[in-house]
C-alpha cells in the first residue's frame, strides 16, 4: 500500500461565502516534490492552506502524514509539516537569527533555552540558504530576496519531513530561484523530504517537480507524474494560452514555450 | 449607498426635531414653531437659547469627531486610534485649567478659545516629537508619542485640580463634556474648522483609499505617503480641536463612529469618500440621540454625555460587529 503525504477527499472550502474549492479529492505521494499549478484564484493556495489546517473546510476530509488533520496536536503537526505562506510578516526589528530560531518552536522545551539541537538546526538552515553572514541583521535591513531566504531558512529550521511552500520563488531573481529549487531537490533526494510547492513558473514545475496537480476554478483538472500532466492540451486549456512543449538537446525534461492567449 | 445616506439624513433630521421638543418638559410642535419664528415667553426662550444651541452643537461636534476619528484610523491603520490619542482633549483640558487657575477666567468664550489653542499646541508638540523620533513615516510612533503626551498633560491637569479644588468645581461642567449650556456663538469656533476638515478630507480621499494598501504600494500608485499622513492628522486635530472647543472632552464618539460607519454597508467596505459622509452622519446622529437621552435618563439632572454616548453606541457597535462576518479596517 503506497504511503501518502496528504489525502483530500471531497473537500469544499470558501472565504466568507465565496467558494474557493469545490469538492476536490487528491492523493499526494510521499517523498516527492509536488507542484501545484494553475491560474490565479484557481484554489491552489487554498488547497495548501486547508492541508495545513490554516483554513477550516466547509466539508470533506483531509489526512496528513497518515492521520486525520483534526487528530494532530498543533505542535505534533508542526514537527511533521512545515509551511511558508505567501506573505509572512514579522516585526522589522527582529534579527534573522531570532526569526530562524522561531522555526524551532515545536521542538523547544517549555522552560529551557535553545538546545544544542536547536542551535545546530538553525545553523544548518542559515548555512544552506546562505544567510549565515547576515544572521545579525534585522529583517528591515534585508533586500526582498534576502528576506525571502530568511523565511525559507526559518521554515527549514523546523526540520519537518514534509514542507509546504506557497510561491517560494517570489522576490527571488532567476539565479536564486533556481538555487532554492536545487536545494529543494537536494533535500528531497538526500533526506527523503516531501515538498508541496505552489509554483507559477510552469518551466520550473516541469524541471523540478515529480508530481503536478493542475487547478482550475476551484477544481483539480489533473494530478499525476509531471510529464503526464503538463501536456500541451492540458496547459493550453487550463491557462487559455497557446503553447508548445519542446524537447531540447541535453536536457532531460522538455520546456514549455507559449506565445500569448489562445484565440478562438 | 444613496439610500443609506438619505436614510441617515432623515434620521438625523428627525432626531434634531425631537431634540427641540424633548427635555424636562415636552413641548408641542406649535410651541416650537412659534419659538423658532421669533415668539416670546419662557417656552420660546427655552427652545431658542437652550435646546437649539445644544442640538446644533451636538450635530457639529458629532460630525467633527466622527470624521476626525476616521482620518486617524485611516492614516495610522490602527483600530484603536481616536482623536484623544493626538493629545487634543488632554491639551485642551490643561489649557482650560491653567486659564482658570492662573489667569482666573471662566467665561465660555475664554474656555473655548483656550481649549482650541491647547488642542492645537499639543498636536503640534506630538508631531514635533514624532518627527524628532524619526517616526513621521511610522504611524505607531506618532500614536505612542501622542498617547504619552496626552497622559503626561492629563497628569498635570489632574494634579492642578487636586491641589486647587475650587477650579475643579467651576470647571467640572466643562471637563466632563456636554452639549448643554453652550452658547450658540461657540459655533463660530467649531463650524469653520468642521468645514475646513471636511474639505481637506475630501481633497485627500483618494490618497486615503490608496493608504489602505501598505505604504510601499501606496507610494507606487503615486501617493506622497508622509505628506498625506501628516496633512490628514493635522485635519483630524483641527476637527477635534473644534469639537473640544464647543463641547469639552467628549469620549468614545471619535473612536466608535468610524467603526460603525464602516459596517453600515454590509459586507463591502465603502470608499473613503463614502466613509467621510457616513462617519459624519453617524457621529452627528449618535450625538443628538445621546444628548436627548442625557436630558431624560436622570431627569431633572443631566447625565454626562460620554456615558450616554457609550450606552447608545455600544449595543449598536456590538450588533454590527456580530452581523458582519469579516472585519477589516
Amino acid at each position, binding site marked *: 500500500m503506497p504511503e501518502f503525504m496528504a489525502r483530500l477527499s471531497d473537500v469544499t472550502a470558501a472565504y466568507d461565502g465565496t467558494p474557493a474549492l469545490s469538492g476536490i479529492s487528491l492523493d499526494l505521494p510521499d517523498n516527492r516534490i509536488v507542484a501545484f499549478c494553475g491560474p490565479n484564484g484557481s484554489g491552489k493556495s487554498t488547497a495548501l492552506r486547508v492541508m495545513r489546517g490554516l483554513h477550516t473546510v466547509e466539508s470533506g476530509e483531509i489526512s496528513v502524514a497518515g492521520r486525520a488533520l483534526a487528530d494532530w496536536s498543533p505542535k505534533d503537526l508542526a514537527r511533521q509539516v512545515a509551511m511558508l*505562506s505567501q506573505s509572512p510578516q514579522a516585526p522589522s526589528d527582529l534579527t534573522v537569527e531570532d526569526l530562524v530560531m522561531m522555526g524551532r518552536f515545536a521542538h523547544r522545551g517549555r522552560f529551557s533555552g535553545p538546545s544544542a539541537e536547536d542551535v545546530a538546526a538553525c545553523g544548518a538552515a542559515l548555512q544552506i540558504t546562505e544567510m549565515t553572514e547576515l544572521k545579525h541583521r534585522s529583517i528591515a535591513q534585508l533586500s526582498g530576496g534576502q528576506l525571502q531566504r530568511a523565511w525559507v531558512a526559518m521554515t527549514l529550521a523546523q526540520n519537518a519531513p514534509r514542507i509546504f511552500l506557497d510561491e517560494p520563488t517570489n522576490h527571488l531573481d532567476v539565479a536564486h530561484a533556481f538555487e532554492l529549487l536545487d536545494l529543494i531537490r537536494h533535500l528531497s533526494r538526500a533526506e527523503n523530504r516531501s515538498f508541496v510547492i505552489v509554483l507559477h513558473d510552469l518551466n520550473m514545475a516541469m524541471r523540478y517537480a515529480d508530481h503536478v496537480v493542475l487547478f482550475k476554478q476551484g477544481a483539480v483538472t489533473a494530478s499525476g507524474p509531471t510529464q503526464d500532466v503538463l501536456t500541451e492540451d492540458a496547459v493550453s486549456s487550463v491557462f487559455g494560452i497557446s503553447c508548445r512543449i519542446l524537447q531540447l538537446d541535453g536536457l532531460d525534461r522538455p520546456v514549455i514555450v507559449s506565445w500569448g492567449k489562445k484565440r478562438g | 449607498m444613496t439610500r443609506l445616506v438619505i436614510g441617515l439624513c432623515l434620521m438625523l433630521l428627525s432626531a434634531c426635531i425631537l431634540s427641540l421638543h424633548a427635555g424636562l418638559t415636552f413641548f408641542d410642535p406649535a410651541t416650537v414653531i412659534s419659538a423658532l419664528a421669533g415668539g416670546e415667553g419662557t417656552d420660546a426662550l427655552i427652545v431658542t437659547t437652550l435646546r437649539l444651541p445644544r442640538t446644533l452643537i451636538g450635530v457639529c461636534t458629532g460630525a467633527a469627531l466622527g470624521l476626525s476619528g476616521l482620518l486617524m484610523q485611516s492614516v495610522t491603520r490602527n483600530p484603536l486610534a481616536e482623536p484623544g490619542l493626538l493629545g487634543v482633549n488632554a491639551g485642551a483640558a490643561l489649557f482650560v485649567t491653567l486659564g482658570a487657575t492662573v489667569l482666573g477666567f471662566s467665561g465660555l468664550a475664554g474656555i473655548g478659545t483656550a481649549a482650541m489653542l491647547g488642542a492645537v499646541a499639543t498636536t503640534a508638540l506630538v508631531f514635533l516629537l514624532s518627527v524628532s523620533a524619526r517616526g513621521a513615516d511610522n504611524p505607531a510612533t506618532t500614536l505612542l508619542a501622542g498617547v504619552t503626551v496626552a497622559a503626561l498633560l492629563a497628569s498635570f491637569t489632574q494634579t492642578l485640580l487636586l491641589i486647587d479644588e475650587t477650579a475643579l468645581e467651576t470647571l467640572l461642567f466643562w471637563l466632563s463634556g456636554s452639549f448643554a449650556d453652550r452658547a450658540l456663538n461657540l459655533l463660530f469656533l467649531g463650524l469653520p474648522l468642521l468645514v475646513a476638515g471636511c474639505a481637506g478630507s475630501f481633497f485627500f480621499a483618494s490618497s486615503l483609499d490608496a493608504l489602505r494598501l501598505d505604504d510601499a504600494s501606496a507610494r507606487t500608485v503615486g501617493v506622497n505617503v508622509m505628506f498625506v499622513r501628516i496633512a490628514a492628522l493635522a485635519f483630524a486635530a483641527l476637527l477635534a480641536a473644534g469639537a473640544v472647543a464647543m463641547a469639552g472632552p467628549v469620549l468614545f464618539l471619535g473612536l466608535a463612529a468610524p467603526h460603525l460607519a464602516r459596517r453600515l454597508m454590509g459586507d463591502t467596505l465603502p470608499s473613503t469618500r463614502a466613509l467621510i459622509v457616513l462617519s459624519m452622519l453617524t457621529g452627528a446622529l449618535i450625538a443628538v440621540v445621546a444628548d436627548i437621552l442625557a436630558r431624560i435618563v436622570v431627569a431633572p439632572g443631566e447625565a454626562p454625555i460620554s456615558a450616554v454616548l457609550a450606552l447608545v453606541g455600544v449595543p449598536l457597535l456590538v450588533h454590527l460587529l456580530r452581523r458582519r462576518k469579516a472585519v477589516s479596517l
Partner: protein
Amino acid sequence: MTPAIPSAVRLAPVLGLLVLVTIAAIGIGSSFMPPERVVSALIGQGPRMDEVIVWKLRLPRVLLAVLAGAALALAGALLQRVVRNPMASPSVLGISDGAAVGILLFLWMFSDQGNNLTVSVHWQPLAAILGASTFGGLVMALALADRGGNRSLKIILYGIALAALAKAVVTLLIILGPVYRASQALTWLTGSVGAAHWDDVLTLALGLALAAPFLASQRLVLRQLVLDPESAATTGVPLERAQFILLAAAVALTAVATAHVGAIGFVGLVAPHIARVMHGQFRSFYLLSTALTGSLIVLSADLLARTIAPPLELPTGALTALVGAPLFLYLLIKGRRYHA
C-alpha cells in the same frame, strides 16, 4: 554589530535603579531616614523605632507599589502581543473599567446610611476581580463566538466597546450612587497605594508568584505571536488556545492589581515599550524587564505623590504618567529608530 551583552546583565540598570528608589521611598516620609538607617532597619540591625516605621508603615506601601506596577506592566505586555497592537493596555480593553464597576457596585450595595460598610472591606478585592473577569470574559466570549475574520481585531473592537460600556456604568453609578461614596470611588479610580496593608502585599505577591511559572512556560508562545497568525500557526502555536489563556492571564493580573491599588493607568501601556527599547523585546528576560520597569514607574510615581504637595497626598495613579511619559519620550527620541 553591537557587542553581545548577556540578557541577564541588561537587567542590571533597571534593577539597580529599583533598589535605589526603594531605599529612598522607605527613607522619605514624615520623618526622614537616611539610607544607612533604612538598610540597617531592613536587616533588623536598627533601633526599635526605625524598625517599626520601616516594617509597619512604609514597607507595605513600597512593596505594594512594586508588585502592582509589575502586575499591570505584565498584563500590558501580554495584551499587546495577543491583539498585536502596540496601543493595547488593560484600560483600553475594558479590564480596568470592569474592575471599577465591581468596586462601585460593592460600595453601593454594601453601604449603610452611616457611610459604613455592612460587610468586611476584605471583600472589596473580590468585587474588583469579579468585575474585571466579567468584562474580560465578555470580551473573550464575544470574540470567540464570532467566527471568521481577524481574531485580534475582533478582540480589540469588542474590547473598546465593553470598555466604553464599563466607563459609562461607572459614571452613572457615581452620579446615582450615594454621594458620600463618590470621592472614595474617585480616589480608587485614579489608583493609590496609600492604604497599603501587609494583607494586600501578600495577596498580590501570591498572585504574581502563581503567574510567574505560567508566564515562564508561555514565554516562547508569547514571542511566537509577533509573527503573523498564519506563520505562528505553522510553527506549531495552538493559536486560538494561546490567545485565550494569555488574555485570561492578562485579565487575572489586572484584576488582582486593581483590586488592591485601584485603576492605576499608563503603566500597562508604556512599561512594555520602555522595556522593549532598553532591553529588547526578543531577548530572554523581556517579561522580567517589563515587570521591573512597571515597578519602577509606580514606585517613583508614589514617591512623587507623597512629596510633591505636602501635606497633601496625591493619588499614585495621577502621577504614573508624570514619571513614565518623560522617560518614554526621551527613549523615543534618543533611541535608535523605533520599530513598533
